[in-house]
């Protein structure tokens, strides 16, 4: 061998350095991205176009229905790729960042919208929507969700896909057995929980409180109480408002009920809470409206006739029932899509009354209305049954909006981390929220 060891190492270092610069090059030269979306151009001939969509796993059923309708109408083909909800934002960012451009349309969680826009992952749809006001009818979108789900820096980046709000569900049979009334306030909720757990002998618990330490679980649980006490995540000027008396009261209510809840809130996620409620072991739980569909399905529910939905309780001096936009979703066009007009057409189509009503009309899709007109549709009444009134009231009011600017996901994680330590008894509600407030203010 003539190559000496040193030569080789030198070569190796150069090789490594070359590789280290590659991502920069590839990031600069993502030349194969399609041209920017031309808002005036309509995708006239979609026949044979293939669109790839990144979707949230729990929403796959809804997407299948919307995609089939779109395919029938246009002749395009739609390929859906489901991923777990905790990877929805990061996979979309990575798809664009790397220049891979695998997808044409992203379903997104609105809390991650700021990060997606910051990553340059989403096509600006402002002009596209303006050009098509007559068809899209933005004024029909629920005012409570349209802006939070799509607007960043005064520009529109997508259209809503799923409204997604929370209700409180209870088990009438258990309530009758233990002689308690449906709670109107979080204080009553705590009393009911204590009563049932106390008399339940370890077989029945008053409530399943979902406290798993991720934003989409513990964040929802806290948000339900926050809106009940009349608090907000951010004040009107957009500054964190986590140390407000309402927020502290909400956290205190959460910490106080934890010892009486299904053991133990911090380990309770969807997979513990839902089965416990559906099998009659937990008398109450807060959840997205699609729990009503699961509860009505005899294959998975033992409480088909005894479940009831009510609006989330109120607390403190607040007397107006509200709900929280806990996991709303939108759909947007990838900046790397090679069929941007077609992708925009799909985004527009899935938000259309026809697609929305068909999706909602199917049991088990878990979709909630995004349009006012949907409340009048027979599909909505049929699917939501006894929950319809509360869903409409919640979405038509002023639901609690989560932050959606750059870094929102990180900030929410900090909040639930501090809340979890509080539930464990390691700090008071005030301490937990003060720490979260400090972290939010640092940005």
């Amino acid at each position, binding site marked *: 061998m003539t190559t000496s060891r040193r030569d080789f190492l030198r070569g190796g270092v150069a090789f490594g350095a070359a590789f280290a610069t590659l991502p920069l090059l590839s990031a600069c030269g993502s030349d194969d991205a399609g041209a920017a979306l031309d808002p005036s151009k309509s995708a006239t001939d979609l026949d044979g176009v293939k669109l790839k969509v990144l979707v949230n796993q729990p929403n796959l059923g809804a997407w299948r229905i919307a995609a089939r309708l779109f395919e029938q109408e246009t002749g395009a083909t739609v390929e859906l790729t489901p991923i777990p909800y905790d990877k929805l934002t990061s996979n979309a960012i990575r798809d664009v*960042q790397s220049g891979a451009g695998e997808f044409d349309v992203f379903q997104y969680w609105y809390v991650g919208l700021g*990060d997606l826009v910051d990553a340059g992952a989403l096509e600006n749809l402002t002009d596209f929507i303006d050009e098509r006001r007559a068809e899209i009818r933005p004024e029909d979108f629920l005012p409570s969700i349209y802006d939070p789900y799509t607007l960043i820096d005064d520009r529109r980046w997508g259209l809503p896909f799923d409204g997604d709000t929370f209700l409180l569900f209870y088990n009438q049979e258990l309530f009758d057995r233990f002689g308690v009334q449906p709670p109107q306030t979080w204080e009553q909720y705590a009393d009911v929980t204590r009563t049932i757990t106390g008399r339940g002998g370890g077989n029945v618990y008053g409530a399943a409180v979902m406290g798993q330490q991720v934003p989409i679980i513990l964040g929802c649980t806290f948000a339900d109480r926050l809106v009940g006490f009349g608090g907000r995540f951010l004040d009107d000027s957009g500054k964190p408002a986590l140390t407000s008396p309402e927020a502290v009261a909400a956290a205190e209510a959460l910490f106080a009920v934890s010892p009486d809840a299904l053991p133990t809130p911090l380990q309770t996620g969807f997979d513990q809470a839902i089965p416990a409620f559906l099998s009659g072991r937990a008398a109450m739980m807060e959840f997205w409206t699609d729990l009503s569909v699961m509860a009505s399905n005899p294959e998975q529910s033992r409480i088909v006739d005894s479940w009831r939905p009510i609006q989330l309780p109120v607390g403190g001096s607040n007397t107006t029932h509200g709900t929280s936009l806990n996991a709303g979703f939108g759909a947007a066009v990838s900046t790397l899509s090679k069929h941007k007009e077609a992708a925009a057409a799909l985004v527009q189509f899935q938000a259309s009354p026809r697609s929305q009503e068909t999706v909602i009309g199917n049991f088990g899709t878990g979709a909630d209305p995004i349009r006012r007109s949907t409340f009048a549709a027979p599909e909505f009444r049929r699917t939501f049954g006894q929950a319809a009134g509360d869903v409409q009231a919640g979405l038509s009011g002023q639901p609690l909006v989560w932050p959606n600017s750059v870094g929102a996901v990180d900030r929410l994680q900090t909040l639930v981390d501090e809340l*979890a330590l509080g539930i464990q008894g390691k700090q008071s509600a005030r301490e937990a929220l003060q720490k979260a407030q400090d972290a939010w203010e640092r940005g």
Partner: protein
Amino acid sequence: MRKTPASLSWPLIGALLLFSAFPFAYLIGLSLTDSTLARPLNGFSGLDNYADALASTAFKSSLWRSALFAVGAALLQLALGTALALLLAIRGRRLGWLGVALLLPLVTPPVMVGVAWKLLLAPVGGALPEIADTLGSSGFNPLGSSLGAFVSLLAIDTWQWTPFVTLLLYAALLGVPRELLDAARIDGASTRQLLRHVILPLIAGTLVAVFLLRLVIAFKVFDIVYVVTSGGPGFATTLSAFDIYRTGLQDFQVGEAAAATVVFSLLVGIFVTVVSRLHKRVREVAP
């Protein structure tokens, strides 16, 4: 004796450059810049990310927790594995169906291991708490308490890895020459003496080597934390690898996650160096 040509090492070195040196250089770059998932390498930021990582209670506490977990898991599995391997060796030279059973946990996907254990341990409806309930001890809920959750993860990891350790040590025990044992017996050595003075020194090299491998793998444990506890309750089971995953890929603070990885790697490096030294010494003194 001829010199071993360096060309033999090239494929490995090339692969290490590709898979380790390049990502590591990139990692250092990320840790020194203002980097989020959306905007990696977005302007030099000095040691800010390191300061952020070390200011994070979650990460700081995860370091000693990871060390405790890795050392604890490796020691526990080494002890159990040695005991089982001795029993197997006492049984005879053939494993038969027991060998098959030993391989089972090793080939099971960690995701599934996590799911199975989570269902077994679920406080309501889980099989083990229900059994504990019928035996008269209600409120059995290991995942609900900080200590219980940590111990549960140790137990699950031990369940998955002890068979592997057992197999390796069983193999080492079979390598102990029979004549040596017979000779010691004739000299009147008791079983305990035999273990201490003949068998243990002979397998010491393997013991340390297996300990090292287990230590490194246990430091990286991620899947079961992700599935079974998500790091909770509180931060009781937030091990470093999981915290780094959370910071980088869930909260998108890639720069901070990169700095945390560098710090964490240093910690692992210290442990590995110490054990490697030990390994070397054992190999030198081994007969």
